[in-house]
């Protein structure tokens, strides 16, 4: 048998490779045979294709958006008039908790990561994500966490402690039953999922960029993905630890958050918001990536001040870790703490402001096409600036202490989250829909739903500033008549219904267009990044030959020509690794075959996590099936090593 040393020095094996002599239809047939997932349900479950995983992430997140949105409508119906008795106080507590939890943990972060999983490999010009099985595992883990929360809600054991679950309300003394445990374990599921994706995306971006795509030539969306993935890596361990501590306080009698036994309830708030504030930017920064791509394409020019936009992304990512205490102003802080966190909170508006100026300047100096994706960008700029300004207002402690826990805050964060993330997301879905499905979304229907969403949103959320200033508290199921709260609440409810209808219309547009939309060419919007170089929808292997990049706008500067490298194996899944900074070709690396083990591992993890809500022993015994599944996932399925390496 050949030794490892001899193998390491051996010349490349004589196997079929892509190149001038193997291209076109012949290459397509062979690459498809290698990269397509197996048929049948097991094949579907075993898929490790980032496009499948990303699409499933997005669909699941949109389902959770619909569920969370239905709860929002229920709340708005309850609040449409004073002293309404449609929903009682206890149910209302559950509903606002479920709404916030679903929107933050099961919709906003996953939908952004889903978009990133789908788009990143296409944008950097590679065939797959770095760790396809880990990414698949993450999908199933996320879905299991979402199901845990919603099944519990349907069984009437849903959490009722707010989306940030402050102890002592969530602790063993007041959080009776299993409601807080369900919440805490759902957090663990989603954090494991998000962390797995973040690692996979970071490695993809750093090691799998097309030759020549130096860091300074990366599309801004890819920069946004890199920064958010690093933010996930640095922030999510904090909430995973916090929720573990909460579970152990509730299950095995630790006292992390119990002031009677030397613990401190505020420890929770620090750990939670050290994650919770970066979380806002984990949702927002991918949206700035969408905006940058859409603005460039629809203004028909490259983005102005690319380095400033990128540095602003990085600066926001760093500053986001220094702001968390502004969520805790009302808990009482030393003076210097107030000053520091006020200054830090205000300073984060500087990089964001710079980005907004860059986008406006790009549109100003370009030849903008007012199509649906760009309309969403303009709506984003208007709405996000309003939300940003109220953010600067409440960064000031005296005002924050007045407005804390009022509807003013509700208005603020919906302006920044819906305006800052959902509007760009809807624009991005419209923009990349033809790439993912091969069909265009209806422009007319798109414009109707755009105007309904934009105006309905303002109608729903602007009056909340007023009701908040009038002193209406959050998280209370009703309000008395005669305090001037009737009109703003009625307007908010009407606006909420308009938004719900508009989102429904958007989804109808998606569903109708998948079947009957106009067929899309490879590059329907005349975009410039690499995803537009391949067919719509892309083949299982993404690119027939790996593209080469020598500018920030490869398709515009290439003038109808695409330089490629060749020599990758076609009968085995193979990727090209490049160097981190300059993206010089470095290694040919095998990519994982489809496997059912990620979904089995996620099932084993689910048994362990759900079991540990009831018994600490589940942590110990649950590791056995998990370890078996992970070992089978990793263990090679061939008896002997293949001629050149593979991951079977």
């Amino acid at each position: 048998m050949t030794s490892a040393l001899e193998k390491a020095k051996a010349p490349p094996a004589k196997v079929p490779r892509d190149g001038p002599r193997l291209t076109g239809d012949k290459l397509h047939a062979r690459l498809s045979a290698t990269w397509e997932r197996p048929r049948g349900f097991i094949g579907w479950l075993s898929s490790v294709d980032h496009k499948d995983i990303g699409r499933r992430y997005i669909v699941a997140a949109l389902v959770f958006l619909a569920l969370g949105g239905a709860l929002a409508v229920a709340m708005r119906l309850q609040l449409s008039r004073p002293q309404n008795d449609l929903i009682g106080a206890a149910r209302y507590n559950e509903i606002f908790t479920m709404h916030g939890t679903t929107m933050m943990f099961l919709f906003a972060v996953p939908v952004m990561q889903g978009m990133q999983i789908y788009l990143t490999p296409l944008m950097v010009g590679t065939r797959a994500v770095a760790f396809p099985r880990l990414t698949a595992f993450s999908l199933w883990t996320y879905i299991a966490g979402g199901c845990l929360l919603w099944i519990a809600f349907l069984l009437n054991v849903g959490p009722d402690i707010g989306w940030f679950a402050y102890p002592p309300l969530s602790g063993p003394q007041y959080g009776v039953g299993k409601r807080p445990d369900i919440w805490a374990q759902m957090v663990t599921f989603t954090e494991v999922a998000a962390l797995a994706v973040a690692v996979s995306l970071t490695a993809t971006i750093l090691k799998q960029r097309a030759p020549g795509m130096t860091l300074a030539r990366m599309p801004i969306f890819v920069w946004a993905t890199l920064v958010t993935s690093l933010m996930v890596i640095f922030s999510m361990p904090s909430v995973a630890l916090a929720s573990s501590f909460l579970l152990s306080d509730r299950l095995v009698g630790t006292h992390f958050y119990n002031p009677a036994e030397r613990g401190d309830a505020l420890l929770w708030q620090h750990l939670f918001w050290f994650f919770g504030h970066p979380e806002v930017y984990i949702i927002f920064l991918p949206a700035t990536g969408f905006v940058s791509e859409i603005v460039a394409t629809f203004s028909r020019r490259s983005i102005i001040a690319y380095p400033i936009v990128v540095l602003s992304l990085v600066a926001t990512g760093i500053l986001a870790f220094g702001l968390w205490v502004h969520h805790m102003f009302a808990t009482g802080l030393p003076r210097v703490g107030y000053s520091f966190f006020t200054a830090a909170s205000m300073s984060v508006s500087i990089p964001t402001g710079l980005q907004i100026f860059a986008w406006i300047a790009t549109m100003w100096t370009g030849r903008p096409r007012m199509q649906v994706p760009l309309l969403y960008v303009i709506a984003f700029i208007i709405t996000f600036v309003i939300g940003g300004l109220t953010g600067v207002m409440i960064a000031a402690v005296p005002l924050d202490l007045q407005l804390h826990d009022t509807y003013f805050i509700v208005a603020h964060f919906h302006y920044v989250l819906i305006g800052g993330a959902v509007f760009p997301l809807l624009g991005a879905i419209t923009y990349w829909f033809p790439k993912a499905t091969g069909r265009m979304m209806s422009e007319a229907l798109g414009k109707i739903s755009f105007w309904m969403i934009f105006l309905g949103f303002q109608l729903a959320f602007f009056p909340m500033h007023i009701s908040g200033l009038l002193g209406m508290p959050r998280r209370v199921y009703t309000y008395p008549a005669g305090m001037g709260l009737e009109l703003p609440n009625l307007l908010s409810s009407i606006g909420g219904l308009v938004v719900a209808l508009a989102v429904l219309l958007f989804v109808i547009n998606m569903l109708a267009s998948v079947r009957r939309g106009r067929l899309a060419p490879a590059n329907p919007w005349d975009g410039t990044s690499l995803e537009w170089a391949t067919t719509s929808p892309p083949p299982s292997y993404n690119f027939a030959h790996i593209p080469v990049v020598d500018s920030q706008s490869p398709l515009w500067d290439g003038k109808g020509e695409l330089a490629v490298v060749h020599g990758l194996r076609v009968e085995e899944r193979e990727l090209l690794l490049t160097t981190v900074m300059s993206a010089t070709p470095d290694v040919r690396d095998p990519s994982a075959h489809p496997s059912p083990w990620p979904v089995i591992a996620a099932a084993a993890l689910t048994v362990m996590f759900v079991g540990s809500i009831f018994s600490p022993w589940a942590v110990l015994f649950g590791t056995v099936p998990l370890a078996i599944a992970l070992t089978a996932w990793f263990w090679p399925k061939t008896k002997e090593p293949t001629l050149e390496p593979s991951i079977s």
Partner: protein
Amino acid sequence: MSLRTNFTDDLSALPTHAFSYRSLTWWGIIGFMVIEGVAFAVAAAAYFFLMSHEQEWAPRPWEPPNLIAGTLFTIVMLASEIPNTMVKKAAEKYDTAAVRRLLPWIVGIGVLLLVIRGFEFNSLNVLWYENAYGSIIWALLFLHATHIATDWMDTVVLWRLMRTPHGEEPRRLVDVDENALYWRFVWLTWLPIYLLIYWVPRFFR
């Protein structure tokens, strides 16, 4: 509009594996190290946050943990770097025979460490449910114990795999190299935790 393809370099001569930062899995492992490192750092922050409320740490009448088991653990852990470096170097030289010889030693050291860890839990002089000081001390030790256990399991699987014909596949030696890298991380993270569990409660009495 379809793009005209312009073929440039042929990459078939590129290697199919590489060590260190040229390897894709190396970046994955670094990612997970950062995640775990942040978890430990946040746990340490929680430790100091709880400590900041106290006049004394360990709070009386609880005694600081006994030193013997933890210190023995630390010594064995540091000593484990010798075979760890040997196996890492063997992997980098594609010396499968040496790797096959050395990995059982690493597995054995893991077993020894897990046994000592059991005694450590017994020498903390506080239980997790007695107060928040006990909770955080136990949490740190438990977190690190899971660290040791997962790496031990990982090493067992790798050892068994290296004994198969796959042991002669150069990429498997990259796995061995990266497993050794991870072990360095495991013992490096232990050093501050050792101070937090065993020495800080002595310094602040």
